[in-house]
């Protein structure tokens, strides 16, 4: 097997990871940042699960007549990661809703501008 065929899943994992990272750094919209964070997270799922696959193997459910099973341990770890990931997403979105309530915007530059304006006029409250 050539390097392109044997390492393709790793390269797509890397691409998804940096796509998520790019969205988190470059995009100012807070909802979009959280979606970028989710994409980063799913790339980690792939990083764990893909090496556990054995071609010709079956899912790790023990049965008569099957000898080759894919690796069950990454599956266990990632099951936990998915549930924790959706919990952090829910918490992040709740904070975004609160920020929108306080600032009237979910764009990072507008929030920072509002903060700077508030610092310049400390006597006035928002």
């Amino acid at each position, binding site marked *: 097997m050539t390097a392109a065929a044997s390492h393709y899943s790793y390269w797509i994992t*890397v691409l998804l990871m940096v796509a998520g990272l790019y969205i988190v750094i470059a995009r100012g919209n807070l909802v979009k940042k959280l979606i970028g964070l989710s994409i980063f997270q799913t790339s980690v799922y792939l990083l764990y699960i893909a090496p556990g696959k054995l071609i010709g193997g079956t899912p790790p459910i023990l049965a008569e007549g099957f000898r080759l099973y894919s690796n069950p341990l990454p599956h266990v770890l990632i099951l936990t990661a998915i549930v924790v990931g959706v919990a952090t997403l829910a918490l992040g979105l709740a904070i975004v809703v609160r920020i929108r309530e306080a600032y009237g915007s979910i764009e990072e530059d507008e929030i920072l501008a509002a903060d700077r304006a508030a610092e310049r006029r400390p006597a006035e409250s928002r």
Partner: protein
Amino acid sequence: MLIIAVLLTLMAAVAVAVAVQRNLFSVVVLGGIYSFLMATVLVALDAVDVAMTEASVGAGISTVLLLGALYLCGGGEAKPLARPWLPLAVALVIAGALAYGTLGLPAFSDPQAPIHTHVVPRYLSAALAETGVPNVVTAVLASYRGYDTLGETTVVFTAGVGVIALLRRIGRRKKPGRGQ
């Protein structure tokens, strides 16, 4: 092998579409498509339990949460990018470093890779006798590593309490406003 490669390519295309798309509703829908593609890839990779969780939690609950947040935030279009070149350069440098790092990893589906030889044969050979559960993922999750699952439940509970605490304040603040 080929179907995994095709699905992974589709996932990469959807991720790039999420990065360039500015309409937030489209981004959420693309996120749902992305999660379902992920679930399909996971089935192809023999991770059936994870695929089921990803399809229900990743594509279902996450999408509902995001749509709810969009409703509360009144989200329409995200602003266009001002200077995307620095983040793009950072992303490309990290991608290059990580891709170079993958060359030292074992090939896809190599049965001699450390992941398949270290502790897994012990689980696969003894799980049925020790726990009585034929699904090894369930056996590890609920029996061998039961305390980890308890910790996970604690995390989810804490997040739920946090969400309620954050969103309750909105309701309380609005009520006196309506009375005035």
